[in-house]
């Protein structure tokens, strides 16, 4: 509807791609076991396979925007490699395979084992993130809130409070900007360096929160005046149903996850 920057309110673009038609909770639940179990893997193959699985699901099932492509094809791989290398630097030589030296600077050596451990961590984190993106990239905030109300039975008063709170974000952002300007011209905590910056930010907090709380109180009055919370439930014009395909998606995803874990079995028992 609007070409505006970030509007959490825009309803999901009508898309034939299957992920957009699934219930947000299905998209959250499907990869959950895999994500939890990945925490305890140490090899590099298993997370790579899950990374691939996540990419296949997202690329096949979502309408790929340029921003999304950038995230998937550039940002995530780069982050994985950077984190992997960072971890490699910090590993303790006594706990890893030191048979191959990759790089030696003075008395310090980077061992192949360290790189391997680091990369495993990088890929593992990337896989966990990628699995989370299945829901993240194809779900809008309001839909998520509605499905928590409609399926998880979260009280609608809490759900709709969250919807109302979406409106707070741009407003508070604008207020923060004005407060910063005002404090700047008043010369509050001028000076450079991290400590001056901290003192400055500290000064913004009370005006920001005070204004935020007062605004919230006014919004609450306006909602109460319109019968918010009158009944245990309310008319829903937007339904986010749980259909057969949601169950199917979750079951299939769980089965595939189990299959992968069984095949590559990344744990040594005993």
């Amino acid at each position: 509807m609007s070409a505006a920057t970030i509007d959490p309110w825009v309803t999901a673009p009508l898309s034939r791609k299957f992920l957009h038609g699934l219930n947000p909770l299905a998209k959250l639940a499907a990869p959950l076991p895999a994500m939890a179990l990945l925490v305890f893997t140490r090899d590099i193959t298993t997370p790579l396979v899950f990374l691939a699985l996540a990419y296949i699901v997202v690329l096949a099932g979502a309408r790929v925007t340029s921003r999304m492509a950038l995230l998937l094809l550039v940002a995530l791989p780069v982050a994985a490699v950077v984190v992997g290398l960072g971890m490699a630097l910090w590993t303790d030589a006594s706990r890893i395979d030191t048979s191959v030296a990759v790089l030696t600077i003075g008395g310090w050596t980077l061992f192949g084992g360290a790189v391997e451990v680091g990369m495993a961590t990088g890929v593992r984190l990337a896989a966990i993130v990628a699995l989370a993106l299945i829901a993240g990239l194809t779900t809008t905030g309001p839909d998520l809130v509605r499905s928590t109300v409609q399926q998880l039975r979260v009280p609608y008063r809490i759900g709709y409070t969250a919807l109302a709170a979406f409106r707070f974000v741009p407003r508070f952002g604008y207020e923060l900007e004005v407060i910063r300007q005002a404090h700047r011209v008043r010369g509050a905590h001028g000076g450079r360096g991290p400590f001056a910056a901290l003192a400055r930010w500290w000064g913004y907090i009370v005006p920001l929160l005070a204004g935020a709380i007062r605004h919230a109180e006014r919004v609450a009055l306006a909602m109460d005046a319109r019968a918010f919370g009158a009944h245990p439930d309310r008319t829903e014009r937007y339904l986010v149903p749980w259909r057969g395909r949601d169950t199917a998606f979750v079951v299939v995803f769980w089965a595939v996850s189990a299959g992968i874990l069984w095949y590559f079995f990344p744990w040594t028992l005993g």
Partner: protein
Amino acid sequence: MTRSTLLSTRLLLVCAAIGVATGIVGGIAGVVTPVVLAAAPFAYGLVLGAHVLPGIIAQEVLRRPMVALIAHLMAALVASAFNPAWIGRFLGTALLFGAIQEGVAALTRYRAWGAWRFFISAVIIGILVAAVVFFVADLGKLAPWAQITYLAISVLGPVAWTALGLGIGASLRRAGVAARA
């Protein structure tokens, strides 16, 4: 129709406002996370600790049951709407942190609001987070000193952010913001 509710609309929305305002800090923490993970993974606890803020401020300002959990939930839902890629992380930390803060407050039957009470939840959060991240990031492979630093910082992070949250709450009380809550 005459249903008395534990949580008034006003309380819910004030929690949401606190969640959103502190969410700005959480957003910054989210941005620096990859940098910290790459440069100094053992300092991650310091960054993650920022996520304790909504609950601490809500409890300190409102001093009511459920406010910590709700403030966390609101912060997470709103943050997810704007940065959907991290839905899982936002919801997970919110529920975990909120439940711990709420639990500690419930154990004192919402009567004791001394600073020590907040710090107990901070330490619990620190230890729990330390354990999870330890496995995810395979920190067992780090040098012993790094592991010890990591553990210390993981616990220190939430404690430091809790202290900050309490300071903010106190300033708000002084400014009369919480007076009518």
